[in-house]
């Protein structure tokens, strides 16, 4: 049986595992007493387990109950227009399980059935159209893996080290394999001759929810790689991720990935909606704000060790694991520093980097209980190198809220505990 208890992870760590750190050898050790888990016949080796009719649609085993979305109540006025965080500290590989992939709503996660779903294309088109959900499934479809990162990911860290965990500092992100229809096919169906020169044209997309989340997207991007997606990681979108249809805008800030998308308007001008004026604009130190900062620049984070994933196994072999991504294309390299950026070594990419998708990296190393200042630095195929927070602040100041892709520092202590810090 299991039950959930509120307990600070740090305290659990100290009482539970600090003792294990001392005295571990670098090579395989010998046991003095036989392990009863081996020498005694265990229940699971004798009795039967669950039948195949037990779980028509399963959830993770109870022992993984800490791999869940978490939210930070003080960040927003309430939980409806708010954010939660993907448990990236506990995940591996690159695909985010949908059930714990972060949510960001502006008026809550709505319930919209396929039979009630309508998608309108109007504005500067030859023939304004209405599609049903069934219509969308009849268009040629594509499959692509892309990251969706909230523009505000790491935004709480602009002025200092604030939240203690990769989930909280970098967890406004998920990475899924989407199945959908290229937006250009839907626009083509409505016809763009009326729009004439497409270079200066825009599409305005909005959701079916009360917030609408309307955003303006330049036509060039709309005709490039934007998808109108109805499946993620093989199955229908989750309700909270836009069921039954969402926009996928590869490499661009998550706000533009309009969920429950109901309308696409071809326009001769951006709408300058609330979500691209009041929000998702980035104030610089002089008080002038950048607008239309669409692309998410190259970024990385060491997910383990991290504050929620302390080192509990003592000295010896240690796997440093992390994620890197870039809205400009593929990740070509990730460097890791253990001394706060004085020296760097190049990590191993755990998978072939796909464009505008999460990439896993590893450094297989040894730890002797010394204090480390761990950093990762991503490089993408354009040659862009992930900057430090100091470098970002020099250009932007501390109040741009969004687009914080700085190098993160974790302080691994002799105890194996890990803390979010800033370094000089």
């Amino acid at each position, binding site marked *: 049986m299991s039950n959930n208890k509120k307990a600070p992870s740090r305290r659990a760590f100290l009482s539970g595992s600090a003792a294990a750190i001392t005295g571990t050898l670098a090579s395989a050790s010998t046991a003095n007493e036989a392990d009863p888990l081996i020498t005694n016949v265990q229940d699971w080796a004798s009795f039967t387990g669950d039948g195949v009719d037990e779980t028509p649609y399963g959830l993770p085993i109870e022992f993984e109950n800490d791999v869940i979305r978490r939210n930070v109540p003080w960040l927003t006025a309430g939980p409806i227009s708010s954010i939660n965080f993907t448990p990236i500290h506990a995940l591996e590989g690159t695909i985010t399980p949908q059930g714990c992939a972060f949510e960001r709503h502006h008026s809550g996660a709505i319930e919209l059935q396929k039979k009630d779903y309508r998608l309108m294309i109007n504005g500067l088109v030859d023939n304004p159209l*209405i599609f049903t959900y069934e219509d969308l499934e009849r268009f040629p479809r594509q499959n692509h893996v892309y990251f969706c990162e909230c523009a505000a990911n790491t935004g709480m860290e602009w002025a200092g080290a604030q939240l203690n965990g990769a989930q909280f500092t970098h967890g406004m992100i998920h990475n899924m394999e989407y199945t959908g229809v290229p937006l250009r096919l839907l626009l083509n169906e409505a016809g*763009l001759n009326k729009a004439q020169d497409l270079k200066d044209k825009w599409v305005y997309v909005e959701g079916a929810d009360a917030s609408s989340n309307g955003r303006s997207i330049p036509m060039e991007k709309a005709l490039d790689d934007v998808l109108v997606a109805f499946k993620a990681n093989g199955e229908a979108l989750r309700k909270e991720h836009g069921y039954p249809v969402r926009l996928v805008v590869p490499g661009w800030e998550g706000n533009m990935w309009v969920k429950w998308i109901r309308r696409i308007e071809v326009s001769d001008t951006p709408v300058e909606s609330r979500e691209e*004026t009041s929000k998702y604009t980035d104030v610089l130190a002089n008080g002038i704000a*950048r607008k239309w900062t669409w692309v998410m620049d190259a970024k990385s984070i060491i997910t383990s060790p991290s504050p929620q994933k302390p080192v509990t196994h003592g000295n010896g072999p240690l796997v440093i694991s992390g994620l890197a991504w870039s809205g400009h294309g593929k990740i070509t390299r990730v460097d890791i520093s253990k001394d706060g950026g004085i020296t760097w070594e190049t990590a191993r990419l755990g998978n072939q980097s796909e464009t505008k998708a999460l990439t896993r990296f590893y450094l297989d190393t040894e730890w002797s209980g010394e204090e480390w*200042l761990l950093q990762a630095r991503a490089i993408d195929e354009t040659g862009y190198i992930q900057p430090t927070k100091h470098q970002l602040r020099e250009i932007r100041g501390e109040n741009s809220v969004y687009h914080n892709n700085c190098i993160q520092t974790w302080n691994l202590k002799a105890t194996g505990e890990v803390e979010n810090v800033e370094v000089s």
Partner: protein
Amino acid sequence: IFADSKLGLGRTALPSEITAWDVDILPDGRGLPVGNGDAIVGEETFANKCASCHGDFAEGVGNWPALAGGFDTLADEDPVKTVGSYWPYLSTLWDYINRSMPFGGAQTLTSDEVYSIVAYILYSNDLIEDDFVLNEKNFQEFNMYNSNGFIIDDRKISEYPIWSKEPCMENCKKSTSITKRASIIDVTPEETSTEVE
């Protein structure tokens, strides 16, 4: 541009359907319905439908957004970004209120109510007199305080060239020390951990 031929999917949208859903207002005022309102009328509507979250004077309650004030704070250590101090276009205010407010009861306001609430918010920011009647015609002439406060994303020029040089690998700085610690701020939620018994 398109190699793809049409598939003949979907059906033509009816004018009434487009009217129902296409309600966005452009910065030049296109899309505004005929109507009007002033801050005197707007004050009562605002008190009934908006003030519980945004305050009697649009100053904001608790964590809910302030809609007024904060002028000339954008370069400060803690900028106060409101409709008055920050928003570049009046069209956005009309559009967003009409489409998405009140929070939890969106799309329940009449056009005249939206005009009057917009007028009240402008009045709360000392941008108009209380008897100024806002309508679809004079709307376009209104210049917001921070209308020149935005530049288009310039990272290609201001950042990418600087951060695209071959990175340092060794002896990159003389020393390093910890300057900030999250544990000192201590605002991370406690985790719900599982104990298996």
